[in-house]
C-alpha cells in the first residue's frame, strides 16, 4: 500500500534538479527522532520551487508540523539538510527566520494588540518600511474581508478572524518561503476562498509556499504539488492529477446508507471501499459504471441506502488508498 | 449519576491533575512559612519568648496562604488559558460537585505543610506548644476559607495577569503587613480595623487558639468571620458559574 519513491544513492528522489537555484527550498533526508524514541520524520526529501504552492497532506500526527518546525528553526533535525538556495538553514536558524515566514498551528499572541497594529508591526520586524507595510496591511485587511475588525483588540476576535489576522501578519511582508500550518482552521467558507486567493497571489509573486493541511479537498484545489505523509514517511509526491493517474480509469461511487445499516455485501467489481459515518465510498473501474448503478439502485430498493452518486475519483481516494484511513473531513460542496 | 458518585469521579480527576504538583506546593509552603518565621528573626533583633511564641503560632496561617490563595487561582488561570476550563465545565457534572472536588483537594493539600512548618518553627525558636483539639476545626475551616476565597478570586477575575499580581501581593501582605505573626496592637488603628474585616487575622486567631493557651482572644468572633468569608467566596464563585450557565 505504501508507495516508495525511487531514490538514488544519496537518498534523493531524482525528481528535480540539484540545489543550485537561488530560490528553491531543498529538504533532503530529513529525520527527526524525539527524545523518547518516537521517529517523527523518516528521511523526508522534497523541494519547493519559487512560485509554487506545495502541500503537505497527512493524518494527524503524521509529522507534517514537525517537518516545518525544523525548516523555521524551532526544532533541530536529527539528520538531513535543509537549504534555501545557497543558505544552510539547519546550520543557521537565524537565517531561516529572516528568509522564511511561519504561521503556526496555534493562534498568535495578540491579546492586547489591535488588528492593524499586529499586522503592521510584524511587517516592520520582517524588514518592511513603515509606509509600504501600512499600505500592504490595509490591502490585506480589505482582501481578507476583516475590515470591520481593523481596530479591534486581539482578545475580542473569534477564532476564525484571529486566524486570518495571523495569516496577514505572516504574509504582509513575506519571506521567500512562506510556511503555513493549517491556515484555514476555524475560518468560515467564504473567507477561506479569499485566503486561498491570497496564497495563490503570493506564489504568483515568486514566493515558495509550503502548506500543511489535513483537508484533502481544499488541498486538491489550491496546491501545485503535494506530498502525502504518514507516520513520518513520504508516501507519494506529485501534482494532484499525476497522483490520480493510477486511478485514471476509475470512478468513485458514493452510497449514503440508511442510518444504522450495516455495510452490505460488496460485489466483486468494488476495488476498494471506505466508510465514514453513513457514507460508503467505493472505487470501481469505469467499465463497471452501469453495473454499479444497478447495484446501488438495488440497495435503495431494499432500503439499505438512501441515495447514491457516481463521479470522478478525487484526491481523497488517493489519500485513502495511501494512508488506509477513512478521511474524516466532510467535502466542502 | 448520584452526587456521591460524580463527586468521587471529579475528586479523582482533581487529584490526578494536582498529584504531580503536590511536592512543589509543599516546598512552596515551607519556603514561605518557615522562611518568613526565620525572616522575622532578622528584622527584629531582640526577640522575646512571647514574641517568638506569637511568630511560631502564626506560621501555620502563613503556610495556608500559598495553597488556597495562590496555587488554586494560578491553576485555574492556567486551565483557562489552556482551554481545559471550558472542557471541565462542559462535563455532565453538577457545578457544585466540581467546586466541591476542587475545594476538597486544595483544603487537604495544605495540611502536610502546616504540620511540617510547626515542627520546624518550634525547633528553631524552642517554643513549647499547648495543642488542643480545637486545632482540627480551626485548621480545616481556615484552609477551606482560603480555598473558597481563592476560588472566588479565580473565577471573578478573568485577567490572568491581574490575578497573578494580586495573589503575589496577597502573599506579601500576609507575610509582612498582617497581624499573623505580630500582635495587632502594633498596628495603626486604621490598618487594625481593616484586618478585623479581612480574614487573615482571624485565620491566625483560630489556629493560635488551638496551639496555645491565652495568646488568642475573642476566638468565637473569628470563627464567625471565617465562616462568612467562606460563604462569600463560594457565593462569588457560584454567581460567576451561574452567569456562565
Amino acid at each position, binding site marked *: 500500500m505504501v508507495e516508495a519513491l525511487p531514490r538514488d544513492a544519496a537518498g534523493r528522489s531524482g525528481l528535480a534538479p540539484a540545489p543550485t537555484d537561488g530560490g528553491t527550498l531543498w529538504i533532503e533526508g530529513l529525520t527527526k527522532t524525539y527524545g523518547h524514541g518516537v521517529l517523527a520524520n523518516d528521511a523526508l526529501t522534497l523541494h519547493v520551487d519559487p512560485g509554487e504552492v506545495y502541500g503537505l497532506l497527512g493524518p494527524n500526527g503524521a509529522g507534517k508540523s514537525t517537518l516545518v518546525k525544523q525548516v523555521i528553526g524551532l526544532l533541530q533535525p536529527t539528520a538531513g539538510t535543509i537549504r534555501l538556495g545557497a543558505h544552510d538553514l539547519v546550520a543557521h536558524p537565524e537565517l531561516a527566520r*529572516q528568509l522564511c515566514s511561519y504561521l503556526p498551528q496555534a*493562534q498568535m499572541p495578540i491579546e492586547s494588540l489591535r488588528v492593524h497594529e499586529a499586522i503592521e508591526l510584524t511587517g516592520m520586524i520582517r524588514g518592511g518600511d513603515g509606509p509600504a507595510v501600512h499600505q500592504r496591511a490595509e490591502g490585506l485587511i480589505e482582501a481578507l474581508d476583516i475590515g470591520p475588525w481593523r481596530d479591534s483588540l486581539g482578545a475580542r476576535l473569534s477564532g476564525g478572524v484571529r486566524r486570518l489576522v495571523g495569516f496577514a501578519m505572516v504574509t504582509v511582508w513575506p519571506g521567500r518561503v512562506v510556511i503555513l500550518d493549517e491556515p484555514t482552521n476555524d475560518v468560515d467558507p467564504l473567507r477561506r476562498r479569499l485566503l486561498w486567493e491570497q496564497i495563490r497571489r503570493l506564489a504568483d509573486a515568486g514566493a515558495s509556499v509550503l502548506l500543511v493541511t489535513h483537508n484533502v479537498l481544499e488541498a486538491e484545489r489550491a496546491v501545485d504539488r503535494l506530498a502525502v505523509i504518514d507516520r513520518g514517511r513520504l508516501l507519494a509526491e506529485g501534482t494532484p492529477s499525476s497522483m490520480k493517474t493510477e486511478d485514471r480509469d476509475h470512478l468513485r461511487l458514493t452510497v449514503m446508507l440508511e442510518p444504522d445499516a450495516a455495510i452490505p455485501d460488496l460485489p466483486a467489481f468494488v476495488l476498494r471501499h471506505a466508510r465514514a459515518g453513513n457514507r460508503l465510498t467505493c472505487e470501481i473501474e469505469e467499465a463497471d459504471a452501469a453495473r454499479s448503478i444497478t447495484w446501488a439502485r438495488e440497495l435503495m430498493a431494499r432500503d439499505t441506502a438512501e441515495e447514491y452518486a457516481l463521479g470522478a475519483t478525487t484526491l481523497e481516494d488517493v489519500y485513502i488508498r495511501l494512508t488506509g484511513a477513512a478521511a474524516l473531513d466532510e467535502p466542502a460542496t | 449519576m448520584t452526587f456521591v458518585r460524580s463527586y468521587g469521579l471529579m475528586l479523582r480527576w482533581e487529584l490526578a491533575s494536582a498529584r504531580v504538583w503536590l511536592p512543589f506546593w509543599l516546598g512552596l509552603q515551607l519556603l514561605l512559612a518557615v522562611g518568613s518565621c526565620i525572616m522575622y528573626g532578622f528584622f527584629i533583633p531582640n526577640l522575646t519568648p512571647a514574641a517568638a511564641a506569637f511568630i511560631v503560632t502564626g506560621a501555620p496561617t502563613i503556610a495556608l496562604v500559598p495553597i488556597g490563595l495562590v496555587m488554586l487561582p*494560578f491553576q485555574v488561570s492556567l486551565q483557562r488559558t*489552556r482551554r481545559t476550563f471550558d472542557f471541565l465545565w462542559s462535563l455532565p457534572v453538577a457545578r457544585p460537585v466540581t467546586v466541591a472536588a476542587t475545594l476538597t483537594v486544595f483544603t487537604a493539600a495544605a495540611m502536610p505543610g502546616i504540620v511540617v512548618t510547626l515542627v520546624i518553627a518550634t525547633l528553631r525558636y524552642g517554643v513549647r506548644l499547648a495543642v488542643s483539639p480545637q486545632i482540627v476545626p480551626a485548621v480545616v475551616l481556615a484552609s477551606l476559607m482560603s480555598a473558597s476565597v481563592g476560588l472566588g478570586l479565580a473565577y471573578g477575575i478573568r485577567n490572568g495577569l491581574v490575578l497573578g499580581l494580586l495573589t503575589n*501581593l496577597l502573599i506579601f501582605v500576609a507575610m509582612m*503587613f498582617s497581624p499573623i505573626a505580630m500582635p495587632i496592637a502594633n498596628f495603626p488603628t486604621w490598618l487594625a480595623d481593616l484586618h478585623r474585616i479581612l480574614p487573615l487575622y482571624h485565620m491566625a486567631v483560630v489556629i493560635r487558639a488551638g496551639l496555645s493557651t491565652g495568646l488568642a482572644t475573642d476566638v468565637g468572633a473569628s470563627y464567625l468571620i471565617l465562616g462568612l468569608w467562606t460563604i462569600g467566596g463560594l457565593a462569588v464563585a457560584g454567581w460567576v458559574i451561574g452567569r456562565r450557565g
Partner: protein
Amino acid sequence: MALDVGAARLPWSFSMPRSGAGYWWSSFRTMLRWDVASLRLDLPIVVIIQLIAGAGIVVMMSLLVPGDPPRAAVEYLAAGVPVVNLYLLGLVFGPQWIAEQRAADSYDATRVLPCPRSASLAAWYAVTLAAGVPGMLGTLVVAAWRYHIDFTVSPMILPAVLLVAVSGTMIGAAIGHGVGEPMISRIGVQAINMFVVGFTPTLFPADRLPDWLQAINVVLPFEHMSALLRATLTAGPVDDLGLSCLVVVAWSAACAGLAAWAMGRRG
C-alpha cells in the same frame, strides 16, 4: 525583480538577509513597540501595584520594628525598597507573562520573528525600566515625606538604576525563557522574591544574618544591587562599590546570555 501583489510591490530583490547596526536598531524599535502594545491592558495595573508595594513597605516599616524605629534602620530600608520597585516587572512579572504564552501555545510565534535576540531583550529591558522608575520615585517621595529622610542623591544614581534594573530583568528573562514549565517558574519566582526580601541585606543590614547567609549573599547579586542604590541615595558609608558593580554586571551578563541562548533553543 519586483512583482505586484495587491497594492504594494514586494521587494523580492532583497534576497540577502539583513544584519548590522541598522537591522539591530530597527528590530529594537519595533520590538519595543510590540512589547508596549502587548502590555497595553496590563501595564497600568502593574504600575499601580508597584506604587502600592513600594510606598506600602515604606509606610509599614513601623510594624516590622516595634516602637519608634531607629533612624538608621529607617534610612536603610528606604534605600532598599527601590530595588524591589526596579525588579518587580522584570523578575516577577516577566516570567509569568512568558508562562502564560507557553500555556496558550503562542510562545513560538514571537520566537520565529527575524529579530536579533539581544535586540529583543534590550527592548524588554527598556519596558521594565520604564515601569520601575516611577515606582521607585514614588517610594522615595513617600519615604522622604513620612520619615523626613533627606536623601543625598548623587549623579551616579543614573547608572546605578540602570544597572540594578538590568540585573533584575535579565535574571527574570533567564528564568522565563529557560524554565519550560509554568508552575515551576511561578514557584521559583516566588522563592526568589521571598529570598530577596527576607534573607538578603536589602531591607535590613547584613549583620542580622547568620554568617553562612552573609557569605552566600556576597556571591549573589541582590545585596550588591541594594548597595549600589544605597550609595547613590544616602550619604552613609557603603562597603566596596567596585565589587558590587562587578557582581551585578557579571550576573546581568550571564543571565542575559542564558536568556538569549534559551530563546534560540531548538527541540
